């Protein structure tokens, strides 16, 4: 039965993992996501569903436990925050290379280095541009509410198993720590071993009962085979772009100006859009829900309609590069962000839109006219 509760984002995600029938969670404490493993340990999921929860000796061990569990076809996940995700990247690259389904959660804090424990979106590049070594991508879901923290667990596993590829839930300290209403889905049973073998027996290592042996590896010493593997991965990513892109458009129909923001920045930008509209500025919001695949086409098309775009992020300017690439410089694109764990206010965002886009946009047009006169 569905249940309405008031929960922290991290706790909602943990509860959703139990209810989604996840087989194994392997984690290591790091702020601001430690509630996930604390909640799981307190809930005794081994009694509720038989789910295994293990506190590993490090983030590295945790991701490799996920690798082991995933190689047997089980639904396995881990969570961490920025410095911990850096440690997991080798394992994430192995998951992608060995074509294993798994879910990784990053409740982002500020960096670089030990940085800060406050919210940040400074891991955008790390999440969508590879992060680990080699030619791979992650399917990246960016929740903007506690509800999405819960819902995206099952969505991420669906994608992970559809493509046999790791999926990332890219949250941040704000969404992870805040409390909101959340509707929790009813409990799904965990896959039985028989169901698992039926579903994944053609590749998973479960003991070679009644079949040829299965092998999980990311190693191809023959160049031709390795290139074939990379091509196979690229095909998956192309298919993700065609079939599993997600984004949301708010007040875009008549928009003359556009804000692009994801996750917590999208929440705050939505308020900035309201404030702007109240002042008579026709501003809309495009919220990418998946950061890979990215809503390139939607942005490209909107660039024919709007006069300028502001990319609002909790970082020094990362997603703005993808916005620029998407619109192919048809309109001015600027970045507005705060770092160090400081959260921008809706008023600041609106002011940035007015200063960097609305005012500057007219200057640019003026310059263009000047140059055309000359």
């Amino acid at each position, binding site marked *: 039965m569905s249940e309405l509760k008031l929960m922290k984002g991290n706790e909602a995600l943990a509860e959703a993992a139990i209810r989604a029938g996840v*087989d*194994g969670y*392997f984690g290591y404490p790091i702020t601001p996501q430690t509630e996930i493993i604390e909640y799981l340990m307190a809930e005794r999921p081994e009694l509720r569903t038989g789910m*295994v929860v*293990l506190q*590993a*000796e*490090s983030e*590295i*061990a*945790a991701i*490799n*436990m*996920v*690798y*082991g*569990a995933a*190689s*047997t076809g*089980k639904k*396995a996940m881990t969570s961490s925050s920025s410095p911990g995700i850096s440690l997991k990247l*080798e*394992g994430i690259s*192995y998951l992608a290379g*060995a074509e294993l389904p798994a879910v990784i959660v990053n409740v982002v804090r500020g960096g670089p280095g030990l940085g800060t424990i406050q919210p940040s979106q400074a891991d955008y590049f790390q999440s969508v541009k590879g992060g680990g070594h080699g030619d791979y991508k992650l399917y990246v879901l960016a929740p903007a509410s506690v509800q999405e923290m819960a819902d995206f667990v099952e969505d991420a596993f669906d994608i992970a198993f559809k493509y046999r590829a790791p999926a990332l839930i890219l949250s941040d300290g704000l969404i992870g720590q805040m409390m909101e209403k959340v509707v929790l889905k009813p409990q799904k049973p965990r896959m039985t*071993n028989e169901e698992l073998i039926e579903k994944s027996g053609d590749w998973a*290592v*479960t*003991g*070679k*009962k*009644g079949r040829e*042996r*299965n*092998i*999980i*590896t*990311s*190693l191809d010493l023959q160049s031709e085979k390795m290139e074939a593997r990379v091509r196979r991965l690229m095909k998956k990513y192309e298919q993700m772009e065609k079939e599993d892109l997600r984004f949301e458009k708010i007040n875009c129909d008549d928009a003359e100006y556009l804000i692009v923001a994801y996750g917590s920045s999208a929440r705050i930008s939505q308020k900035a859009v309201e404030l702007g509209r109240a002042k008579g500025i026709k501003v809309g919001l495009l919220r990418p829900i998946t950061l890979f695949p990215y809503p390139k086409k939607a942005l490209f098309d909107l660039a024919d309609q709007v006069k300028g775009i502001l990319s609002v992020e909790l970082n020094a300017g990362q997603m703005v590069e993808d916005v620029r690439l998407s619109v192919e410089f048809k309109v001015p694109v600027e970045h507005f962000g705060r770092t160090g764990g400081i959260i921008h206010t809706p008023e600041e965002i609106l002011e940035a839109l007015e200063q960097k886009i609305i005012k500057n946009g007219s200057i640019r047009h003026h310059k263009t006219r000047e140059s055309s006169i000359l």
Partner: protein
Amino acid sequence: MEVSDIIRPENQVFCKTKLMTDNALSYCPGCGHGTAHNLTMEVIDEMGISEDVIGVAPVGCSVLAYDFMNIDMTQAAHGRAPAVATAISRLWPEKYVFTYQGDGDLAAIGTAETIHACNRGENIVIIFVNNGIYGMTGGQMAPTTLAGMKSSTSPYGRDIETMGSPLKMTELIANLPGVYYVTRHAVHTHKHARKAKKAIQKAFENTRLGKGLSFIEIVSNCNSGWKMAPNESNIWMEENMFPYFPLGDIKVDGILKK
């Protein structure tokens, strides 16, 4: 009597290990890995557990163990095999899970994973082939390289003052309460190989009985890395490796041998 009358399955005393594939071994002639592979597969075959076993291959010379062992296997990142095996064993408690690792993998980069899997007393078998060198990358100093021993990264011999002493990982983990069986063997003679096989069998029996972690070190040679002829390397191993890494049981049925 024709030769074909003599060569019949019922007359065969020795044959190729059934659970070894027909792939040509990638190991150098004279290397102990092939024998260690064979013994492991013989035990699994004789125990009749080949359909319930999941092996974890390391990074190093035996990274391709899955090419030779005809069982389900997953290949782990460098040093992380005990973490990989932990999750498999926890999620498939009825299966026999083992790792097969070298000394660079297990005793250097994977030290944390090894110690913690041992400390949790995971119900797995760890087969640790110690040849005192990084073989795959061409003979660099390993944590188990002996004092004064030359390698490509200790070309003047391992200097204890600056490079530390060779690490006795096996003795180290034997002291952890979660570890049930710890023993050290060799495979360079039939006598040694038979003893090693018995130990491997005992280890998988321990898994069957849910006794916890069994750890088998196999002190082996690396004739290529040591830059010796195979037989010469075995003699060198007996004279130099065995005194520092003495063969025999260290912990049996959860009790340390004095």
